[in-house]
């Protein structure tokens, strides 16, 4: 038997449709691969093999009767942030100890409705707060990639680090992820995978534990652009249960692939060329520009003047919303309760023990910036800066730019327990410097692998699109993928 876990979603789909393989076989291959890898990678925090086999069996029945869905029999990993009925849903936090919801998030329900198979729940930064997966209560996920001739463990990025690592290590065919400031795109770039954060409002947020409501969006992490298109098509929907989900039909993203970018205008923002930028990243960006130019796209220099304010504004808006969103974790309705001498003490002890350091830090910042006398100076101001950031993009798109090309991250994956970042929270936050503007403006952004660093680690480029124009991103990312090729980690685990 060939290694079925090597197949992309599109390839597995073909073989399933042709009945060359069964969904149960495919699922069993993944379960075996997880058993072999997860001890080393720590990508999954909960496994659901019985459920997976049951779902796979049902998928085989569907294939037999010709009723197969778009993702019929495809084994997926689900980020622990998504509510999954009666299955471990803890946002990788101690405070949600033992929580098994009595509901299914809209996004995962959409996937199951299309026939996908659930392998388990994936590790992540606690409540999606982090860029390295190190804030997880379950310990860090390891990046399947290692530098050339090195056995130093690297972070897979975050917060969707478990998702990215599992996809890169072939222990799921694809994974759900979420992105609040870069949490899909940065880990995708660190692991040589494709990750798309769709336009805000494209995927329902219902049933996904909230971090920062005005920024959170779900999206897929996959091995290639086609798989991302296939998965997003299933994940996205209009949802009456989410007031902020947008009432637009979901296009067939896969159909956009392979189209020409000839004559398309690709913007290169001057402000993303930051002081002291890693020359490898600059070179990668130049390479990307060259590929798109070769494919017939018109490259234009653009300016997004408020770019540098996106990250500071983000570190007001996101913690502020988080401080309120995470107030519900109080030891009353679900999860951890640490007894206290009275109700207030119970709250304080529960939240002190239940939240990790990074989550507490952000709750504290968020509480502070919203507290009496500071609202205008911080939150209101940051929301105004957001308007300016969004306006920057609108101006550029109004000038005819179809998509914007930038690096995805300022560097390749770094080591677990990096001392610099430990000492200064802002250093860690700078990982999101290229991705966060997209969340602030609600735009779609895709990270696509574009090359390897001199040490052999994957590097990614980011494409930013107009609202609800994910099709252009898939098409353009496809061109880069075509030119750059695909990257697979050497198995060491």
């Amino acid at each position, binding site marked *: 038997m060939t290694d079925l876990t090597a197949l992309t979603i599109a390839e597995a789909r073909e073989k399933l449709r042709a009945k060359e393989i069964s969904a149960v076989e495919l699922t069993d291959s993944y379960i075996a691969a997880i058993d072999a890898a997860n001890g080393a990678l720590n990508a999954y925090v909960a496994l659901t093999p019985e459920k997976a086999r049951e779902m796979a069996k049902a998928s085989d029945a569907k294939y037999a009767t010709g009723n197969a869905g778009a993702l019929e029999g495809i084994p997926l990993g689900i980020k622990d942030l998504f509510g999954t009925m009666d299955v471990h849903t803890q946002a990788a936090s101690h405070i949600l100890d033992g*929580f*098994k*919801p*009595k509901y299914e998030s809209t996004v995962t329900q959409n996937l199951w409705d299309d026939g996908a198979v659930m392998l388990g729940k994936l590790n992540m930064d606690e409540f999606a707060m982090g860029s390295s997966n190190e804030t997880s209560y379950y310990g860090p996920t390891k990046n399947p990639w290692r530098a050339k001739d090195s056995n130093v463990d690297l972070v897979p990025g975050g917060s969707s680090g478990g998702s990215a690592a599992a996809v890169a290590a072939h222990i799921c065919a694809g994974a759900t992820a979420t992105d609040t400031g870069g949490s899909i795109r940065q880990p995708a770039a660190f692991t040589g995978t494709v990750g798309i954060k769709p336009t805000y409002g494209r995927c329902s947020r219902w049933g996904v534990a909230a971090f920062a409501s*005005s920024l959170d969006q779900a999206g897929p992490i996959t091995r290639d652009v086609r798989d991302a298109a296939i998965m997003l098509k299933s994940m996205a929907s209009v949802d*009456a249960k989410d*007031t*902020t*989900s947008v*009432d637009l039909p979901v296009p067939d993203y896969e159909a956009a692939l392979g189209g020409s970018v000839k004559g398309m205008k690709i913007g290169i923002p001057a402000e993303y060329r930051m002081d002291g930028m890693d020359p490898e990243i600059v070179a990668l960006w130049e390479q990307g520009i060259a590929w798109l130019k070769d494919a017939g796209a018109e490259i234009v220099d653009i300016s997004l003047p*408020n770019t*540098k*304010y996106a*990250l*500071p*504004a983000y*570190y*007001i808006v996101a913690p502020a919303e988080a*401080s309120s969103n995470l107030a519900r974790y*109080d*030891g*009353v*309705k*679900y999860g*951890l309760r640490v007894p*206290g001498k*009275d*109700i207030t*003490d*119970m*709250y*304080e002890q529960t*939240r*002190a023990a239940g*939240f990790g350091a990074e989550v*507490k*830090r952000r*709750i*504290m*910042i968020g*509480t*502070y910036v919203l*507290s009496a006398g*500071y609202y205008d100076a*911080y939150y*209101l*101001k*940051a*929301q*105004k*800066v*957001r*308007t*300016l950031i*969004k306006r920057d993009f609108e101006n550029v798109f109004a000038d005819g730019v179809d998509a914007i090309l930038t690096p995805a991250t300022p560097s390749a994956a770094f080591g677990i327990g990096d001392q610099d970042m430990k000492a200064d*929270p*802002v250093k860690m936050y700078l990982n999101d410097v290229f991705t966060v503007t997209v969340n602030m*403006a*609600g735009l779609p952004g895709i990270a696509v692998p574009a090359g390897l660093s001199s040490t052999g680690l994957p590097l990614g480029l980011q494409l930013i699109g107009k*609202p609800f124009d994910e099709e252009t991103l898939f098409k353009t990312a496809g061109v880069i993928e075509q030119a750059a090729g695909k990257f697979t980690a050497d198995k060491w685990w």
Partner: protein
Amino acid sequence: MSVDTATVKRVAKLARIAVTDDEAKNLEGELNTILGFVEQLNEVDVSNVEPMVSVVAVDMKKRVDEVTDGNKAADIVANAPASDENFFQVPKVVE
């Protein structure tokens, strides 16, 4: 703007997170680093700029007034650390 330990403790109280003196001291440093970082926003002129309300301009969806949910008290308290006869139990609240 920077915070002192007393402010850190006041904020921790508001956020209902118990902090030890050591933790408060550490948080003071971290919070000041972050607040120092976001200080950059002072450079931006936001006069006559409307705050962002929604990144996508759409009308808010509304429900029709129908009872479509409820009658699942067992599910509601299923994950509760302490419950009795479908009530949540909490340490006694004194008013």
